């Protein structure tokens, strides 16, 4: 069990970007200030989160409770390993994404709104990552839902508005289900909502109640985690500006769902309790189905961002699958994949955005020779794509490896098959793209024209991160080490 230490930093981290959001809303009409606030908040936040890392890996959980939200239920923050895994990724990628979006959004309108809600999203994400109890988690989960909306509809086209509505319909319904689930948990557990590795739900709960609770919570969170068939909003939300898609797809929104499921399994029910039921198996099958089916869907997409979206749907279910196996190896895969998928997907989205901004192309079929025109951008894309196919020494391999080992370890050999199939499908939909970009003979040699530096460098930084996450992920403070700490705590090892 981690040692609790009273510290304000877990509350400070979300607060920084919240204040930043306010400042941007107030003074956001001036580009200079906007940039200054966004950048400095992003950096500050990352420093705060990073400063907690050594302690987290060392088994300390920094805790901070706010004034009680209602008697018995506090808004509390607690930086345990699992939460830190998510918070670190979010805050780090926020720094990169801020640089990128400053470049990407240049010349767009309503930028104050954009950056304000962007900061708000990150604030909510970190807050929910560090939430100490289920209700706090849910509160910021919903804040995230709401504050992502103006970003989805940023373009203000009818299509964007429709997408926004779909997004809201899905996620808020999911939120409603979660709320009911939490209320039920609250009643079942007699007023306890604080996460604990032995679970909140008492062991003597009847199987039927257990099943209902589990279904409600996982499916509720599953909406944002885009588990099939609840994924419908995600591809449609692709109309958003690219930095938003990156944020939505890689860091904040979808991961919040996956993270919620992880919390549910580990800290609401507890591994021991779930082992005695069939529920996690059902979740595992559903996740496996999603992994495969979404990949097949991705194969059919021509629009690059839509393909990315379906790929996300597929990748998110890795987390769910890993957590559902109730095996330490697979659980490590799940937690570490939160980081790995985020970095890889952000790289891809950044590259896609850079292409769109530089050449105006959004469909894969138009991208012949793009790699010769923008070799660095597409190179970064390629690195991420290879990562997704599970090439060793890249981030994705770490997840895939742990997952496969976990599958064998828990006697579920089909998991490895799913991993293999997913790797192949990933190859099947990313390699042709790379082929088009780099190798397809084109009638006319494109002139070299890379994206502008503010788009290019964040992309490259992310690509480097993909490599680092595959190479040195086990260093203290890197995702794998955090994930191992988290899983060790959850499994009582």
């Amino acid at each position: 069990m981690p040692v609790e230490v009273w510290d304000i930093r877990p509350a400070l981290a979300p607060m920084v970007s919240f204040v930043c959001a306010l400042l941007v809303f107030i003074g956001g009409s001036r580009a200079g200030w906007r940039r200054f606030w966004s950048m400095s908040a992003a950096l500050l936040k990352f420093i705060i989160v990073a400063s907690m890392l050594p302690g987290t890996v060392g088994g300390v959980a920094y805790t901070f409770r706010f004034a009680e939200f209602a008697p018995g239920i506090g808004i509390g923050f607690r930086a345990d390993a699992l939460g830190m895994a998510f918070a670190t990724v979010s805050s780090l990628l926020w720094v990169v994404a801020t640089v990128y979006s400053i470049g990407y959004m240049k010349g767009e309108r309503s930028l104050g709104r954009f950056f304000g809600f962007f900061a708000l999203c990150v604030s909510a994400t970190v807050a929910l990552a560090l939430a100490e109890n289920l209700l706090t988690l849910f509160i910021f989960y919903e804040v995230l839902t709401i504050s992502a909306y103006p970003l989805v509809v940023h373009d203000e086209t009818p299509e964007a508005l429709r997408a926004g509505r779909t997004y809201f319909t899905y996620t808020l319904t999911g939120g409603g289900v979660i709320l009911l689930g939490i209320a039920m948990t609250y009643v079942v557990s007699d007023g306890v909502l604080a996460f604990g590795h032995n679970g909140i739900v008492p062991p003597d709960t009847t199987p039927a109640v257990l099943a209902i609770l589990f279904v409600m919570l996982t499916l509720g969170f599953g909406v944002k985690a885009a588990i099939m068939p609840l994924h419908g909003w995600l591809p449609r939300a692709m109309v958003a500006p690219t930095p938003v898609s990156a944020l939505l797809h890689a860091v904040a929104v979808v991961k919040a769902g996956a993270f919620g499921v992880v919390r549910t399994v580990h800290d609401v029910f507890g591994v021991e309790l779930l082992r005695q039921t069939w529920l996690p198996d059902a979740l595992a099958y559903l996740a496996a189905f999603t992994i495969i089916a979404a990949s097949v869907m991705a194969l059919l997409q021509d629009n690059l961002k839509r393909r990315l979206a379906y790929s996300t749907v597929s990748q998110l279910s890795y987390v769910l699958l890993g957590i559902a196996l109730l095996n330490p190896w697979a659980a490590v895969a799940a937690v570490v994949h939160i980081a790995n998928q985020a970095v890889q997907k952000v790289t891809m989205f950044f590259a896609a955005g850079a292409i769109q901004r530089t050449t105006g192309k959004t469909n894969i079929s138009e991208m012949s020779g793009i790699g010769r025109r923008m070799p660095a951008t597409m190179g970064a894309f390629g690195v991420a794509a290879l990562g997704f196919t599970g090439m060793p020494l890249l981030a994705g391999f770490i997840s895939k490896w742990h997952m496969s080992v976990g599958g064998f370890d828990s006697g579920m050999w089909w998991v490895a098959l799913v991993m293999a199939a997913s790797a192949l499908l990933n190859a099947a939909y990313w390699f042709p793209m790379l082929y088009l970009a780099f190798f397809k003979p084109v009638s006319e040699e494109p002139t070299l024209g890379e994206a502008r530096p503010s788009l290019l460098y964040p992309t490259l930084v992310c690509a480097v991160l993909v490599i680092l996450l595959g190479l040195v992920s086990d260093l203290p403070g890197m995702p794998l080490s955090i994930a191992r700490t988290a899983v060790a705590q959850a499994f009582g090892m």
Partner: protein
Amino acid sequence: MSEWPGQLLVSVLALPVTGAALCLPLHRISDRVATAWTLLVTTVTCAGAFMVSVRVSHVGPFSHHLGGWLAPWGIELRADQFGALVGLAAPVFALVVFYGVRYSRHAVEAARRGPYDALLLINLGGLLGFSFTGDLFNLFVFMELFSLSAYALVAYGKQKVAAAASFRYLVMGAFSSLLVLFSIGLLYQLTGTLNMADMAYRLADGVPHRPVVLAFGALALGFMTKAAVFPLHLWLPDAHAAAPSPVSAILSGLVVKMGIVGLIRTYDIFQGAGGVDLPTFNMGLSTLGAIAIVFGAVLALIQDDIKLMLAYSTVSNIGYIAVGLGLFNESGLTGASIHIFNHAVIKAALFLALGALTFRTGYRTVSDLRGIGRRMPITVGALSVAVISVVGVPPTAGFVTKWYLAVGAVAAARPLLAATLVFSALVMLIYYLRIVNAFYFRPAVHEEVERAVDPPLDMLAPVVLLSGASLALGLIAQVPIGIALPGVMRLLGGG
């Protein structure tokens, strides 16, 4: 025991009513003086009411006996937890009046402004008196004060429907008042007392059942009508939509809540009475509440006029409270009680923000107000926050209610009810989304909208304060809950 709390209680009730009397002569002298006077009285009264609430939260309920006659013979003023919740909401009233100064100059012609101010003050006195009395007949009197002034205030609406809406409100209101009066008479005959606590005590032993049930039925029905519990809500949408925005804010925020307070008083009186089948009533009430939630939400969906929509949203929100009351367990009652307060804040914010839009542009439908978000960013921002709160998205005030009600429904093993609660709010949100979309993401269609700017500070400040409060109250919900909880425990018989 020091006497000041009692004196405070007396002055809180007396001040607005007497102040109202001065309004008309002062208005003859000068519009400004009358306005200043109104503001002064309102502010002092509301501050007093707030202090009463603070005291209740610290030391619990307290009473004052007029003229020193103890209950059951004398008239007892009593501030209990539920009254305190209304007292806590009194600053909303003050803010509305503050906001209304400029608005009424725009919406009400000069000659009728004196009575308007007076009516507002009377209304305030009625509201507070209703909440802070321990005497059933006093309750009736104060009820008539706020009801009559409310009927009249609705008629101040500029639209042609205002008078008709007011008339319908009046008929329903008068009918419900009659029911209450009848019940009071009956109860008095049965028990020989008008003091509520005493009455409850006497009803508890050996009073013939059938008349008691009749009295209960009449009283409950009367208050349910006042509270516009479905299907007795028919008067509400038109009346709230037709009134000037500040009045709508008061009506939706506070006046209908009096019906709820009345219902809670009814519980108090009949709790131990033989023959009254409270569980069945509660089952019915919560079911009606659930229907109201859905019905209000759906009807709000199809409105283009935003005020009508807000009015239907009030029907829906009263449904929440009814559900909470009907659940009659700790969580449910807590949720219902704090929603008395929360909804007052939220709905006032909504009506005032909308009023500001109308004030600047003259329009009040979604389609007319397209694109206003860019022109009046602060107002529309405040409106959006209130919208988020009213549909119960965390971490706003509305969420706290929803949470307690959901927990209460689950605890009462009525998951369907819980689902209704949660999902009808979503329906609302999707609809409200249409407003936000129209305001922010669509081009303007009217020139007035293009030219609009945020209203002056005296209107803006109340709007921002209220919407900020609706956000903050989610985080400091323990304040109203702390007040309500002992009262809830009392109702449940725990103390």
